[in-house]
């Protein structure tokens, strides 16, 4: 089993959840805040330049070894827009 932690845009979360449900994978999801490598959403005011955290949805689930390649590629195809802020997928090894 492998643990998948998927962090995606809020508007794509329903699609990912529907996909996981179709594939029979149990998951939990939670709205989160964060910044990526680019350092978050930046804006400048008269008082200076600030960055703020970006809202995302975190989806966490456990996947069979044989299935996880398929899951990753299908999630990538659903969520991919090609712009910064698409999110990350972390794959973590579970117990054998």
């Amino acid at each position, binding site marked *: 089993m*492998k643990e998948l*932690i998927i*962090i*995606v845009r809020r508007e794509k979360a329903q699609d990912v959840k529907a996909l996981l449900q179709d594939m029979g994978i149990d998951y939990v999801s*939670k*709205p*989160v*805040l*964060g*910044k*990526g*490598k*680019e*350092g*978050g959403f930046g804006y400048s005011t008269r008082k200076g330049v600030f960055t703020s*955290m970006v809202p*995302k949805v*975190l989806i966490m689930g456990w996947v069979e070894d044989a299935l996880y390649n398929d899951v*990753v590629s299908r*999630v*990538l195809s659903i*969520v*991919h*827009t*090609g*712009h*910064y*802020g*698409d*999110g*990350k*997928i*972390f*794959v*973590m*090894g579970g117990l054998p």
Partner: protein
Amino acid sequence: MRLIKAVIRPERLYEVITALEEKGFRGFTVMDVVGRGRDGGLKFGEANYMELAKTLLMVAVHDEDVERVVEVIKRHASLGMFGDGKVFICPIEEVWTIRTGKRELGV
């Protein structure tokens, strides 16, 4: 790569984030959680707090940066009292950047 999960006091979050950004670690994820530690919550006479509000800070870093990040979190999240929280370090097998569709780093 490692995923550092730090359960810290909510009021120390921005101090930790600012310190991490100064050191060059800009990516992280934050969520609000409730839970309790080894002491099993708090008890003030009649009032009994079974769960306490904490913030979970998750940072994915390279293996060689783990010590530095943990050091920053320890220094800036600590009040020296019960309830300061914990830092968990988990191994990551793969990281996928969805924008490029590429696997960034293996173990």
